[in-house]
């Protein structure tokens, strides 16, 4: 490498270093704002049904309008940033339309709950009550307290999908951390 090439390379490295410093500075300022607004969006969505301290989106967001499938899933953490539950958003056919449900399964496999959050609009969401009583992913039963069977099929299929998805990611949950 002759002298001019070396000089050029040095110049480029210097410019990149200055750029890197500037970017690190901007990052320091903006990163907390970004993390907070992500949390806010997730909290608005999930806190009402399954209140936890922190949430993290677990999938890459590419399925979020999929039908008859798990649309997304979120990790839920307590104040010590330990993973406590995984919340699944599923969409399955129910009474007249796709029913969107949120199913929360705790890390140890207990199904915390299943709630319908959106669906056919002739239905008042409060008319529909669905109970999953501290069941585990290996052995669960649902009690339909109110609501038509077609609508509950949307949630029931959602629970089944959430459970099987949970089983497939169960072994990797140890590696999840809130970063």
């Amino acid at each position, binding site marked *: 490498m002759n002298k*001019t090439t070396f000089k050029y390379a040095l110049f480029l490295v210097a*410019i990149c270093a200055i*750029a890197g410093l500037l970017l690190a500075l*901007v990052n320091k300022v*903006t990163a907390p704002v*970004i993390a907070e607004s992500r949390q806010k969006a997730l909290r608005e969505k999930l806190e009402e049904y399954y209140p936890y301290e922190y949430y993290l989106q677990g999938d890459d967001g590419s399925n979020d309008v999929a039908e008859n499938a798990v649309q997304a899933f979120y990790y839920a953490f307590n104040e010590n940033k330990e993973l406590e539950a995984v919340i699944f958003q599923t969409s399955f056919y129910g009474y007249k339309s796709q029913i969107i449900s949120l199913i929360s399964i705790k890390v140890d496999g207990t199904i915390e709950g299943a709630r319908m959050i959106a669906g056919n609009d002739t239905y008042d969401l409060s008319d529909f009550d669905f109970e999953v009583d501290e069941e585990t992913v290996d052995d669960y039963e649902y009690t339909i307290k109110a609501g038509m069977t077609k609508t509950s099929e949307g949630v029931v299929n959602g629970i089944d999908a959430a459970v099987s998805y949970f089983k497939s990611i169960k072994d990797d949950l140890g590696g999840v951390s809130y970063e």
Partner: protein
Amino acid sequence: MNSKLQNLTKGFWAENPILISMLGLCPTLAITYKVENALGMGLAVLFVLVMSNLIISLIRHFVPDEIRIPVFIVVIATFVSVVEMVMEAFVPNLFARMSLFISLIVVNCIILGRAEAFASKHNWLDSVLDAVGMALGFTMVLVFISLIREALGTGSITIWGDLAINFNPNNSPFFSSFYVSPPAAFIVLGLILAGSKAITAAKEVKSK
């Protein structure tokens, strides 16, 4: 002073980056389905173009000629990264819609083009004026296309969640979502470029 003003305004029409130079077409096609996107992109490009033209004109005597393109790229990429972070922090919904194309500002030929053609050869004030003019010209065309596509495509213009204008209170079938689809982007841009070419040609005939 007159030439400084010209420097600024040449980007509006005579040397408009989209209509005349036909540069920066990727974002023009991709994001112009919503006026809000056009405004956001325009602001981002304004920042990057002004900052990069400014810095490059200030360091132009220190940069060895052979490595000027990589140096320009580093400068531009730095400011694009700044815009990415700032937008993600303060306008996350807008950023989420356009995040790829905000990053792609770094390969937008307009920015590199002005750096190479102008900022590397002029003082900082002229370079900044050039940048502002080009960025505004770019934004004007983006907004114009988006106005057409969003109005015809959805029947109304919505900015920051507030309905600005509703053209279609009666839900007439004239307004179809076709206009916000990808093929429409090509066709609308093609028609607009043809229109501007026709206007330029007519002006030339008049001045002869």
